[in-house]
């Protein structure tokens, strides 16, 4: 039977609502309002995990998001499992299951614990030093490390929960709902600022609402009572929105913050279904008020990590807020007054407090006197030199501290205890402040880093700004609110504060032991098992930069980013290296403040919403006819149409033959289409294409090649002149958006004098391409009154026509070398047009073909595909397309670059055809090409860019880029592959119908 350490009824715990949950397979009970940590502590469970490196038993240290030790796996083995969750942040619910991480077979008996006894062999940089040699062994080491290390297990099936993103705009964002945050939010919202107040906890009030120091008064009330009234008054302020369970993860520039709002994690499974689990708030605030509070520091002494050793403030919170005593024999160890509040909190509830060990010589505050009066023994100028108890603290040993604090003297006293509260002072939570890009300053007296400045759109108030006493907090907050909100009255003007708070503190970063440092384990970073001696070793080995020491020792590199121990690490480095902490600088706190699940980050953009699909108007037909699809940019394009179980090769061979022998039909709707209008449209085309456009007659089409300013081919396509000042340009499918962007750039920035207007019409038209000798017969059937004679409608020309009463634009253009037409109709008629063509083509055995056949057919003709046969290093000259580069035009984009010494080199890679000596061998695209086989190293001349088996030529064909290739016609080269060398011959890239006779067939 486990002990029940519930000592007090608390308004935050609903004792009528009992909840059962499982931890490491065992059932426990808690109450509504408990965290997993408070419920375990109420059941006297301290041991919750094992440390990362030494597998030392570890317990709950804190009561909040800074927790380094109590890291658990939630709902293990389910698809809702989540690793690395802080037990101090999990609100329990009926049916919750959690387990320890980083231990095997169990937290009670952990085989890895042997590392603890081997620890002299695991110094700082152990992994770096040990696994460097031999390099080839790394894979074996990695396997070992990955299996013995690791915090938690990732889920193995997809996340069933729904996540959401929301944009939020406000005048004032207040982060943190402690006393300062609440007062700031209240005054901002009452002065007509649209205000959002967020806090990571489920209750407002921060630490003030469980404040128990009877000597502090605000308006003659205890601070907690006073603040509860203030919180009550927040309700009903109309400009104020309050979000609890909402943790700010990141603070970016221009007051852009990301916060995670937790909506269902505290609910039973049956209430989670179909609800949004977490929402990522993307907040843009005009002003940000940071009221993030302060984190209590531990003290660094020998064996300061045992289960039962906790922050003093956490013990107070468990006692006052959750009504739980963390131990039955308690000791406090402190360098300031705050531990006395915790001691009294327990004493007042009848819990045994054995002693307070204080490294100061004395303190005269009222609360210290009260502890004395209570008969609790105080050891002044004493320090803990060791602790005992493997799975639970059972005693501490103390000795007298020397005056300079560097050594201990006298005899050792042992005090038996099961819980130790440690109070090392307070560190302002400046994490979000630094994320926003602002700098810190070091306060030598208080030994804390503080925000260097408040700006007009950001202030830090309360203890995160360095004010720890209630009177300081209220006075400074009052002034800052007036300044930043530009108001002259607040509700803080006439508040009366009485306090008994002393800032007296004796700061010693590393407390001495009677044993030499090498024989002690003073942990600085609990989660990563970095000790003070690791830090000192790093310094001895020559590390100086704080960032280097951090990486070498892994201090501050855990999921908690060293929220507790970073200051001590800095202090120890400064003391050892003999520099001032202010000069040392700090490490960088990076977002997120606490870890986020991937679900929250991606929100709704999962599954089919991960990336946008674009589908053509004929898509349904392709699906119904069992097309295989390929992704081209965001487009889903029909790839090939297998029938009767054909392989891709069989389908493509059949489609390619049909397109040349009778008629093929292709969905070309994805081609980019840009409508170009304006009185300077022709001049504009002259400047952006390599060839001349002024003389293109209305109703004619022309192929154009577009370069970058560096002379490299950028895009290509056919442009048609629709009218005197009107063109329609087509681009490659993938290049459409970029081409439009580039053209707009030139128009707006280089040539604003040109009267030209560009409109993207890609989605407005559906395009059906009919290809082959029977294509004309189909057009004749569907548009009987159109004169299709070569005289009236020659190759590279355009006609307007009607199919029934649907307007269409028909271009007689060809990407296959066959007699072909491209019919463009308004997108919504696309499927209808496609089906009409299929019907009309039935008697010619019309064959739908996909992108693969399109690529094969164009390769037979040696037509390039930008992006496949070019890669951003190919000029038109390299492509042997000199014919398209105008000699007469004074200028066009990229022209000057064609005359640079580099682009005129003869030995550039040039586009050629390749034929394999064995016509049945099809080369692999990307395969390297060489001229000598006996060389070593072998010189690569180029590579294969396109390769197919051509059914129309009944042999393998390929396009390739080869260094100096244009002068290699007929030369024998080799394509060396894994198991064989393939003999190839350089050929004309136009493999089929070199005289272009098919165009008019």
């Amino acid at each position: 039977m486990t002990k029940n350490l519930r000592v007090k009824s608390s308004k935050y715990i609903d004792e009528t609502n009992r909840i059962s949950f499982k931890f490491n397979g065992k059932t426990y009970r808690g109450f509504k309002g408990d965290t997993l940590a408070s419920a375990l502590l109420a059941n006297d469970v301290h041991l919750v995990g094992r440390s990362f490196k030494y597998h030392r038993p570890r317990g709950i240290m804190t009561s909040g998001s800074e927790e380094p030790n109590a890291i658990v796996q939630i709902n293990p083995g389910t698809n809702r499992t989540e690793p690395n969750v802080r037990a101090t942040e999990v609100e329990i619910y009926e049916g919750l299951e959690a387990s320890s991480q980083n231990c095997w077979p169990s937290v009670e008996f952990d085989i890895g614990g042997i590392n603890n006894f081997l620890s002299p062999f695991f110094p700082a940089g152990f992994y770096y030093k040990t696994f460097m040699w031999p390099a080839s062994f790394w894979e074996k080491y990695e396997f070992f490390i990955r299996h013995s290390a690791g915090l938690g297990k990732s889920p193995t099936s997809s996340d069933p929960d729904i996540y959401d993103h929301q944009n939020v705009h406000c005048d004032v964002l207040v982060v943190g709902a402690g006393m300062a945050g609440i007062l700031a939010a209240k005054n901002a919202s009452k002065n007509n600022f649209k205000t959002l107040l967020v806090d990571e906890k489920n209750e407002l009030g921060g630490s003030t609402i469980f404040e128990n120091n009877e000597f502090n008064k605000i308006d003659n009330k205890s601070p907690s009572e006073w603040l509860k009234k203030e919180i009550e008054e927040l309700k009903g302020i109309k400009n104020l929105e309050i979000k609890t369970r909402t943790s700010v993860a990141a603070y970016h520039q221009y007051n852009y913050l990301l916060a995670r709002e937790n909506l269902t994690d505290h609910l039973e499974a049956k209430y989670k279904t179909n609800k949004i689990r977490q929402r990522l708030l993307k907040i843009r605030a005009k002003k940000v008020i940071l009221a993030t509070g302060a984190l209590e520091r531990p003290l660094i002494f020998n064996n300061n990590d045992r289960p039962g050793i906790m922050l003093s403030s956490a013990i107070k919170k468990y006692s006052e807020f959750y009504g739980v005593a963390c131990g039955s024999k308690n000791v406090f160890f402190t360098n300031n007054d705050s531990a006395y509040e915790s001691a009294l909190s327990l004493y007042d509830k009848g819990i045994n407090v054995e002693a307070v060990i204080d490294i100061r010589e004395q303190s005269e505050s009222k609360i210290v006197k009260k502890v004395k009066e209570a008969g609790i023994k105080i050891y002044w100028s004493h320090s803990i030199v060791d602790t005992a108890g493997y799975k639970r603290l059972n005693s501490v040993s103390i000795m007298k501290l020397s005056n300079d604090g560097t050594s201990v003297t006298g005899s050792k006293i042992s005090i038996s205890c099961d819980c130790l509260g440690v109070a090392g002072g307070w560190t302002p939570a400046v994490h979000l402040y630094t994320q926003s890009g602002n700098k810190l300053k070091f306060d030598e007296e208080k030994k804390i880093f503080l925000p260097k400045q408040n700006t007009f759109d950001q202030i830090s108030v309360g203890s995160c700004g360095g004010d720890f006493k209630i009177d300081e907090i209220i006075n400074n907050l009052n002034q800052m609110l007036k300044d930043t909100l530009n108001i002259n009255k607040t509700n803080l003007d006439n508040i009366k504060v009485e306090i008994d708070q002393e800032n007296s503190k004796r700061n010693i970063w590393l407390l001495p032991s009677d044993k030499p440092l090498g024989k002690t384990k003073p942990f600085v970073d609990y989660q990563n098992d970095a000790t003070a001696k690791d830090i000192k070793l790093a310094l001895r080995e020559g590390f100086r930069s704080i960032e280097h020491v951090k990486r070498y020792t892994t201090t501050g590199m855990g999921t908690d980013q060293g929220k507790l121990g970073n200051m001590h690490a800095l202090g120890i480095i400064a003391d050892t290296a003999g520099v001032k902490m202010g000069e040392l600088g700090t490490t960088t706190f990076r977002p997120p403040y606490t870890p986020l699940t991937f679900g929250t980050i991606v929100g709704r953009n999962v599954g089919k919403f991960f990336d946008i699909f674009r589908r053509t108007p004929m898509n349904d037909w392709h699906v119904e006819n069992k097309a295989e699809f390929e992704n081209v940019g965001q487009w889903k394009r029909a790839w090939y149409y297998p029938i009767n179980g054909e392989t891709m090769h069989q389908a493509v061979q059949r489609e390619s033959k049909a397109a040349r022998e009778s008629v093929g039909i292709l969905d070309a709707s994805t081609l980019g289409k840009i409508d170009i209008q304006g009185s300077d449209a022709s001049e504009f085309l002259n400047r952006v294409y390599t060839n001349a456009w002024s003389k293109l007659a209305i109703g004619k089409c022309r192929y154009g090649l577009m370069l970058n300013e560096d002379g490299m081919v950028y895009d290509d396509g056919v442009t048609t002149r629709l009218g005197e000042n009107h063109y329609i340009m087509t681009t490659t499918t993938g290049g459409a958006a970029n081409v439009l962007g580039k053209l707009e750039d030139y128009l707006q920035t280089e040539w604003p004098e040109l009267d030209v207007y560009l409109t993207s019409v890609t989605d407005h038209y559906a395009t059906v391409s009919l290809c082959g000798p029977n294509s004309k017969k189909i057009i004749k059937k569907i548009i009987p009154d159109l004169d299709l004679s070569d005289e009236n409608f020659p190759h590279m020309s355009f006609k307007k026509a009607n199919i029934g009463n649907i307007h269409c634009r028909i271009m007689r253009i060809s990407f296959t070398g066959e007699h072909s037409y491209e019919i463009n109709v308004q997108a919504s008629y696309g499927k209808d047009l496609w089906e009409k063509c299929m019907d009309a083509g039935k008697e010619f055995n019309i064959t739908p073909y996909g992108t693969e056949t399109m690529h094969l057919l164009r390769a037979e003709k040696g037509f390039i595909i930008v992006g496949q046969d070019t890669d951003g290093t190919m000029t038109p000259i390299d492509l042997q397309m000199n014919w398209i580069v105008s000699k007469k035009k004074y200028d066009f984009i990229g022209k000057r670059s064609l005359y640079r010494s580099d682009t005129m080199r003869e030995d550039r890679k040039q586009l050629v055809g390749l034929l394999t000596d064995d016509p049945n061998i099809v080369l692999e695209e990307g395969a390297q090409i060489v001229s000598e086989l006996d060389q070593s190293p072998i010189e690569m001349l180029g590579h294969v860019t396109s390769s197919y088996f051509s059914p129309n030529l009944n042999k393998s064909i390929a396009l390739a880029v080869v260094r100096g290739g244009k002068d290699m016609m007929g030369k024998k080269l080799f394509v060396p592959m894994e198991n064989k060398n393939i003999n190839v011959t350089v050929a004309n890239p136009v493999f089929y119908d070199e005289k272009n006779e098919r165009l008019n067939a």
Partner: protein
Amino acid sequence: MFLINCPYCGERDQQEFKAGGEAHIERPKQPTELSDDEWAEYLFMRKNIKGVQFERWNHAHGCRKWFNMVRDTSNDEIKAIYKMGEKPPSQ
């Protein structure tokens, strides 16, 4: 994440914009008159300053207009925004 004041649309989130490199590099009017070195200077050489830099930006997912921005690259402070063709503000 910047908040950028598009001169045509007003304040918008950075994700609507595309950065377009250094501003005020005019395309030579007579490229054929230039030596290889002079052309390379236009084509390749960019400053990439730590400090106050003049940049081109495009409201790509908004009005598609290009404009200029003066930005301190060391702290990302946007010091000024002005339309294409307008004179840069004096430092």
